[in-house]
């Protein structure tokens, strides 16, 4: 048996996009390096996470490995099969979930969707029916199995998507943002299922931009940003990359530029990451990495909040998380990277 379920060597994918500017002006061609010489190996039976902000190249990497895209450079093997030369064998070795709520036949029921894909995976009818029943139970969709998918909620569609990925009982699962858009209860159920699948011996490659999820689920994580892997290790080792320091998390209203500028000029602050949830009220979260003990810094921080008329709703002092690792490595937070990606 091979040691690695997935091996990627210098995998690179470049897209040519066209920027449209008005009715008559010619579009400008742009070369976007979605995945930039990415190399990693996923061991058999582990949960390997690709963690990164939107537009980092996570989904493109999964699509390359799932044979939906042909790389421009580099090579990869899934279950020992080459992703270009042995694409059919790769497809038989994987179960894939790409979008949490798309890619289903809306005019078919959940059960009919699963039956359709089971046949495409060459599962004989009797075996398929047994498997479908089993999977509906696992994803908790038994009661809704005979409803049309158009009547499903986002969470139900995500569960059906996951059930579809498990249909062919493939040894390797590739799950792209499996909990995206799910309510906390459904997300927890999906995470439990992923852990159960690992116990059953499946190798799971998952992408997420949810740090807690990656921390909780993954044996190893590759942090990916702008198409490149910037760090790869276990969550614990990654967190050790950040020097032992306190992080202050503040949820507030009226977060303004002046405050950010003032915070950046303070000596006791190592970095700041802001995440604005509502641009109208400028409410959001500030993540402030400290250079010194939080007890000494907190009064100063609160004084600055008062000075710049920030309405603090919640404040917490915590240790470094994967987000702090990301900020340390890229000098930016996920939110800032998301903003950059959508601006591009």
């Amino acid at each position: 048996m091979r040691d690695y379920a997935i091996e990627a060597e210098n995998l690179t994918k470049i897209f040519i996009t066209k920027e449209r500017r008005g009715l008559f002006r010619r579009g400008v061609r742009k070369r976007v390096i979605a995945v930039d010489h990415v190399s990693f190996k996923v061991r058999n039976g582990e949960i390997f996470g690709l963690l990164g902000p939107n537009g980092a190249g996570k989904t493109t990497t999964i699509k390359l490995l799932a044979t939906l895209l042909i790389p421009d450079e580099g090579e990869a093997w899934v279950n020992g099969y080459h992703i270009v030369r042995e694409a059919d064998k790769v497809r038989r070795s994987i179960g894939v979930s790409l979008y949490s709520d798309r890619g289903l036949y809306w005019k078919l029921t959940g059960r009919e969707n699963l039956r359709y894909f089971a046949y495409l995976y060459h599962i004989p009818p009797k075996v398929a029916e047994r498997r479908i029943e089993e999977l509906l139970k696992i994803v908790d969709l038994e009661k809704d199995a005979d409803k049309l998918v158009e009547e499903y909620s986002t969470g139900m569609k995500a569960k059906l998507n996951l059930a579809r990925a498990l249909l062919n009982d493939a040894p390797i699962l590739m799950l792209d943002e499996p909990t995206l858009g799910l309510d906390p209860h459904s997300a927890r159920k999906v995470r439990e299922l992923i852990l159960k699948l690992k116990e059953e011996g499946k190798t799971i490659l998952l992408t997420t931009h949810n740090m807690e999820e990656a921390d909780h689920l993954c044996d190893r994580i590759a942090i990916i940003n702008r198409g490149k892997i910037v760090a790869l290790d276990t969550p614990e080792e990654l967190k050790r990359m950040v020097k032992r320091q306190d992080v202050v998390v503040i949820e507030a209203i009226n977060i303004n530029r002046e405050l950010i500028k003032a915070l950046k000029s303070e000596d006791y602050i190592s970095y700041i990451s802001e995440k604005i949830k509502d641009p109208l009220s400028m409410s959001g979260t500030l993540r402030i990495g400290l250079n010194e003990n939080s007890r000494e810094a907190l009064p100063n921080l609160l004084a600055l909040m008062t000075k710049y008329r920030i309405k603090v709703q919640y404040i917490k002092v915590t240790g470094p998380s994967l987000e702090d690792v990301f900020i340390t490595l890229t000098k930016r937070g996920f939110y800032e990277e998301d903003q950059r990606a959508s601006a591009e």
Partner: protein
Amino acid sequence: MKKIKELVLNNILVIRAVFMREILYWVRYPMWFLTLISFPYLISGLFYSIGYAMSGENAIKYFSERAGTSNVLLYQLVGSAIFMISILMIEDVGQSIRVEQLRGTLEYNYITAANKIVLWGSVVVPHGLISLTTLATSLIPVLFMGLGAVDPLNLLLGIFVLFIGLMPLFGIGFVVAALTMRFKEPWAVTNIIKAFISAFSGFNYPITILPLWLQYVSSILPTTMVTNIIREALLFNKKIYTMNNQVELLTLMGLMYFTIALVVYKRWEEEARKRGELSKY
């Protein structure tokens, strides 16, 4: 031998899956069937009205002279039914890959173990069945009213010919489908093809009224051939097995278009994977 059996069984499962999916969609959008069975009558009525408006009471007389039959109603119904079936085949097959792309199901279909040619090609089975049901439902009442020749064997052969005649259309549709993996505008292309075959296949008027050069164009269209064969059988009780040459030519056309479709598909499938077009909508 075991491998061949497995291959056949696997492909039957794929065909079954597509058949089931398409039929369920049809059943859940039932108004389509009403449209299909009523359209041959509506289109025939439309042409009759235009003819009457242009030539008055002599319309039927003039038409019969040019078409070579006094059974104008059956002549029109055969043409209109085949018109509907042909349009449906080109439209549905031509847009099939694009529809999957828009729905987000293309990639999921693509990453299964199914052979892609069998997978995309399987739509011909449910569509063939629906087409034949349409033809039967539209024509059988007229035939049983004594307006045409009802020879069971000939009818069966007629159905077979229609199925063969659909193959080139499937091929044309598949070429469009393959191209839309890249170009995303199947509607424009299928509409042009539909307009072309509607005008030059002799569905509702004899192609002899067209200029000579257009008659040549018309005679190489598979739709013209199928319409001719079925009209000969139903209107003049001509035995289909005596029209071997036309049937052979149709089969050849089917193979030719299908081969072109395969080449185009293979070419654009790889291109789509290189450019990331499978997921674009």
